[in-house]
């Protein structure tokens, strides 16, 4: 019959042995360039240590319960008084020195406030947010280009499809992204002055969702609705991209669309209002 303690010791030793072998595996994984082997080697290595140490603690070390005294988490009155008298005798530098004290508060406050000024330097080379947020890169006559940078003609917009366009030369301008959708002009129910902003039933809306700024990713052709993938806001293409479902509360701004002499779709001006998510000082 074997000594039970010896058996436990052997099992713990075996766990640490597994860790050692696992280290060799991890090393081999690194040398061979096999990252999964490297990871599994470390996993098995730490698992062996965990099992061994836990068994050591449970089986070989003295078990409780032990009792530790818990001192009340508040100072005894005498200690408090001792601190009070320590501070009371000569430890109140601000007592009876009103003028220097007030001037110190004034000086530290003034320096502290001015020390915050350089935070403004983070805005170097950045236009004021109000202007930058209010406008996009579209101007009257700016050509619309696809994500490949090629100019887009009316014929490129197939019925039932959605085409993402940017102002020419500004493929990086996220706030300027727009979607082109071709619908039956007879069914478009836009305000009268905005009917002129379409070309042969092609209507252009901002691609940036008015809820939380995600790019509109989906055109539901049968319902003629645009949908945002982030929070499932839905906009009605025929009725000026009015929000008809989901958390978005404002319609997608419409881009005034036209055609230049070469038949390329162009903007007739910037969006009439800021695109994308709202902010408090939005007009």
């Amino acid at each position, binding site marked *: 019959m074997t000594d039970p303690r010896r058996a436990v010791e052997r099992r713990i030793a075996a766990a640490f042995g597994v860790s050692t072998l696992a280290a060799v595996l991890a090393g081999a994984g690194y040398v061979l360039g096999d990252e999964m082997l490297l990871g599994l080697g470390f996993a098995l290595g730490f698992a062996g240590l965990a099992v061994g140490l836990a068994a050591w603690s449970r089986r070989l070390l003295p078990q409780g319960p032990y009792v530790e005294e818990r001192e009340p988490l508040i*100072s005894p009155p005498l*200690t*408090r008084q001792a*601190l009070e008298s*320590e501070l009371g005798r000569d430890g109140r*530098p601000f007592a009876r020195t009103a003028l220097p004290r007030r001037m110190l508060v004034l000086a530290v406050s003034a320096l502290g406030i001015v020390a915050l*000024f350089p935070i403004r*330097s*983070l805005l*170097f080379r950045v236009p004021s947010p109000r202007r930058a947020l209010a406008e996009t890169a579209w101007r009257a006559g700016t050509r619309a280009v696809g994500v490949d940078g090629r100019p887009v003609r009316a014929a490129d917009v197939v019925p039932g499809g959605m085409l993402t366009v940017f102002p020419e030369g500004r493929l990086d301008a996220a706030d300027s992204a727009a979607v082109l959708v071709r619908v039956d002009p007879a069914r478009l129910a836009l305000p009268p002055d905005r009917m002129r902003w379409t070309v042969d039933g092609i209507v252009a809306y901002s691609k940036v969702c008015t809820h939380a700024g995600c790019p509109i990713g989906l055109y539901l052709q049968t319902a003629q609705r645009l949908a945002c993938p982030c929070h499932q806001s839905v906009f009605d293409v025929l009725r000026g991209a009015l929000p008809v479902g989901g958390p978005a509360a404002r319609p997608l701004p419409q881009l005034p669309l036209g055609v230049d002499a070469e038949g390329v779709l162009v903007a007739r001006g910037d969006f009439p209002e800021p695109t994308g998510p709202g902010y408090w000082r939005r007009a």
Partner: protein
Amino acid sequence: MIIRWLGRGAARWFDGRLRLASTVRTAVAKVFPDHWSFMLGEIALYSFVTLVLTGTFLTLFFVPATGDVAYDGSYAPLRGSTMSAAYASTVELSFDVRGGLLFRQVHHWSALVFLAAIVVHLSRVFFTGAFRKPREINWLVGVTLFATSIANGFAGYSLPDDLLSATGLRIAYSTLLSLPLVGPWAAFLLFGGEFPGESIVPRLYVAHVLLLPGLIAALVGVHMAVLVRQKHTHFPGPGRTDRTVVGSKLWPAYAFRSLALLCAVLAVAFGLGALVQINPIWSYGPFQPAAATSPAQPDWFLGWVEGALRLFPPVEFRVFGHLVPAPFLPGVVMPGLTFLVLYAWPWIDRAVTGDRGRHQVLDRPRHRPARVAVGVWALSFYGLLLLSAADDLVAMWLRVPVLDLVRIMRVVVIVVPLLLAAVGFAVARALRGRPEDTVGTLRWADLTSPREARDERR
């Protein structure tokens, strides 16, 4: 009145949750010695605070990348030229970011003051024997802080990728290459390939803003925790024994004094940053593979290594068929030995003096003429090496050929420190036992034979 009432309420609230009264009482009653030399370490601490504050600002604008960009900032001479993003962002930081140049200069000056304060603090601890038992731990932590801070200073001034700092990186690369056997591996591991490579700036950046400052902050914590645990030493004097600490209480007098020192360090750092130009990288130009600046001096805390590289005789030899490159002895062995002796000093001192006792009262430097001699030797030796790092400038000012100056300095760095050490020994020996005398009152006879001996003969 209201503030006091609020303060008392807050004190009750925290004490009811953390039982702080006795800890706070001990803390406010902690006694700090009054001698000015105990505040040298604090200058280093507060310089570190300044470095963290200004450095955080710089990280918001610096781009740690060596990829090429075309500079289009407001510094006209460089506009349109191609340079690394690191250099371009540093020039931009200096000219286009409001406050950027000031914070860059304050940061650089603070680094120089930081290292200087460390060296002066270390000298104080050395000359007064404050490293003796039981303070060996803090000596080791302090020397490690010194080494880490030198490394961090080097990493910091190498970041802008200008022509001057790239020259420093070249020399560091060549010195790494000279390590026995592992040299090429060490250099390639750090630089990500042959010099210059694309990796050194981002790697130095992570070391400079995260790894090394993290280590410094942790070591400062240990340094101060050990200090609080062991309490300060003090100079000998009435009532100053191994069982006492004599000085001012933390609250209120010492706290005010220490805050004054913090503000003084900030004042000097901002004053230097505002008035004295430092490291104008735009005039050095961006790094170019086939160019170096001249004259090129490193920051002062690495000047001693640079000086050794310049003075060391042109010896390369073979050991077991392996080449020992020229930078190895002055660039690796000499600094290595320096730090080895620094680390070992408490035990060397103990072996030489046979003093194994615990000490809470400091030595007056003059009480240990031999230690004074060693300290004077070290300060003058490394000081002369630092001077030799500018041998090209010195030769220009003195209008002597630089190679003649090198030949002279080779002798000077060996002979002069020994002479100064002998003088230091003689002066300390003459002053020992006569606390009322000063250096000015000594006569030649006092220096040539110990005064105690002459007194005995009389």
